[in-house]
């Protein structure tokens, strides 16, 4: 399978630098204004269930064990074991070494298995190693691959190299979905976020993802807004829909609902679906479950009633 660029590689630089600049003050004000929307009662219940279905429940620690990954998979299948009406999460996200364990634990559940690859989180390894990493994750059963781009190459202006690497990883993925992590916390400007988004989409990404969760600045509302504008404009221009995944730092239901409002107002409700929007998170799920329990029981819930992950 080959991925053909909709534009020639020689045009890449001029195309990316020809994208309109991002109005920093405007995008931040817009994100802040949308964050003040109040979502209550029945709408809130629906928003919470949708957010649960969008969670990529993640564990990316050096201390991950097969037991911990199996426990997380069990939680992903039945986030609230006491309430069968609670939907499962979208996917479990692990390191490639844990993909086999997670694949067995998720068999038949419909929950996707995402694996980070390509020398996550830095991406600072030879391309061959990163491709082998990707193939290993796919062979172990991952049907979604979260790759990191070479931020160093991107920041140095070597867009062609970043483009070709994404194309190569996409090929190594085979039928698995490819999520491209831009690591926006290291891209410094909104203009770079917009350029990196377009670069990844042109190279064949199925999803663009904000962050690894391993640096100081993770997903923020304004950055996600810029990326949602990019996927909206990309679909208009090329007819292909790309998903968006903010990751890192989204800890509570209030934050999650702000993102849902942002999607609806920016990219449109086509993206209000786990196939096109995901939350990369770990602690978010428990807060969603607590809020869900509050709505079903009528009293406030507490963390003692949910598992520690």
């Amino acid at each position, binding site marked *: 399978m080959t991925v053909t660029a909709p534009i020639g590689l020689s045009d890449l630089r001029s195309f990316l630098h020809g994208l309109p600049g991002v109005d920093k003050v405007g995008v931040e004000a817009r994100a802040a204004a949308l964050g003040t929307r109040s979502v209550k009662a029945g709408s809130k219940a629906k928003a919470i269930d949708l957010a649960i279905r969008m969670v990529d429940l993640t564990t990316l620690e050096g201390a991950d064990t097969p037991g911990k990954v199996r426990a997380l998979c069990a939680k992903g299948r039945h986030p609230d074991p006491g309430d069968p009406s609670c939907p499962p999460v979208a996917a479990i996200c692990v390191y490639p070494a844990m993909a086999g364990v997670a694949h067995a634990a998720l068999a038949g559940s419909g929950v996707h298995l995402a694996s980070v690859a390509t020398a996550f989180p830095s991406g600072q390894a030879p391309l061959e190693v990163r491709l082998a990493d990707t193939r290993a994750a796919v062979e172990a059963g991952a049907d979604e691959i979260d790759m990191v781009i070479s931020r160093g190459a991107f920041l140095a202006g070597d867009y062609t190299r970043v483009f070709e690497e994404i194309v190569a990883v996409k090929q190594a993925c085979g039928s698995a979905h490819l999520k491209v992590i831009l690591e926006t916390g290291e891209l410094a400007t909104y203009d770079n976020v917009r350029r990196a988004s377009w670069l990844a989409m042109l190279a064949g990404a199925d999803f663009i993802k904000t962050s690894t969760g391993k640096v100081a600045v993770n997903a923020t509302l304004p950055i996600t807004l810029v990326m949602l504008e990019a996927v909206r404009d990309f679909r208009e221009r090329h007819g292909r829909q790309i998903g968006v995944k903010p990751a890192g730092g989204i800890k509570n239901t209030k934050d999650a609902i702000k993102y849902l409002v942002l999607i609806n107002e920016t990219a449109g409700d086509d993206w209000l679906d786990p196939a096109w929007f995901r939350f990369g998170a770990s602690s978010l799920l428990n807060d969603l479950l607590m809020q869900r*329990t509050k709505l079903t029981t*009528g*009293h*406030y*819930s*507490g963390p*003692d*009633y949910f598992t520690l992950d």
Partner: protein
Amino acid sequence: MPKSSKAVAVAENARLTVRKTYKLYIGGKFPRSESGRTYLVDGDNVALASRKDARDAVVAARAAQSGWAGATAYNRGQVLYRVAEMVEARRAEFTALGVPAGELDAAVDRWVWYAGWSDKIAQVAGGANPVAGPFFNISAPEPTGVVAVVAPAGLLGLVSVIAPAVVTGNTTVVLAADPQIAITLAEVLATSDVPGGVVNILTGRYAETAPWLAAHADVNALDLTGVEHAELAAELERAAAGTLKRVIRPPDGGIDLSADPGLKPMTALLETKTVWHPKGY
């Protein structure tokens, strides 16, 4: 001309006084009610707490609990002693709010009395147990956790429910009866090295907020000492049963604040942990 006469009137008043709004005390800060509501008490503007303020206060109390319980008993005692110092320093302010001198003395004395218990309660409420086997068997009291309190009126009433709860390492969400006195006490706490969130004070109608705290799954105990209506107290106790909270019932015939409180107010909010350890190895 009216303009100039107005200017003269202002000059005669010398200055405009800054009117105080009594706000809530949550997580070491003094926010207004999330609902934006206020009400008048003796001419003062006072925040009227909502259920969301109660929720926020529980979050703050929970966040502060492990740190406060983890501090050494000696340190907790020092901090509470400091509170007594600061109440002494603000005597004039409490007096202006109508707290009689006798009650003020009693409140400071009671606070100091409880502060002294911080490193002694474990010896009285716990200890080594004789067992039929080669084991050390030790019982140690631990704080129950987050305690929601409906406080009785007055400064002494507040001290009589807050001090016994926090001295052992619990954190509290207090629904106060006298807003100005309670928030003045909060100003004392905020300047006494008491970590933010250990004591949270809400003013307003407890009949509105207490049911939310009684049913809240992240609250471990409910002190109903200040509840005056038997029916409401019973209703709150039933709500608390849903999550197996410790409940302190309001005393029959109202609380006698002048009586020796004894150890019960402290021991009611302690859980006993017993450890077995093999001997002789």
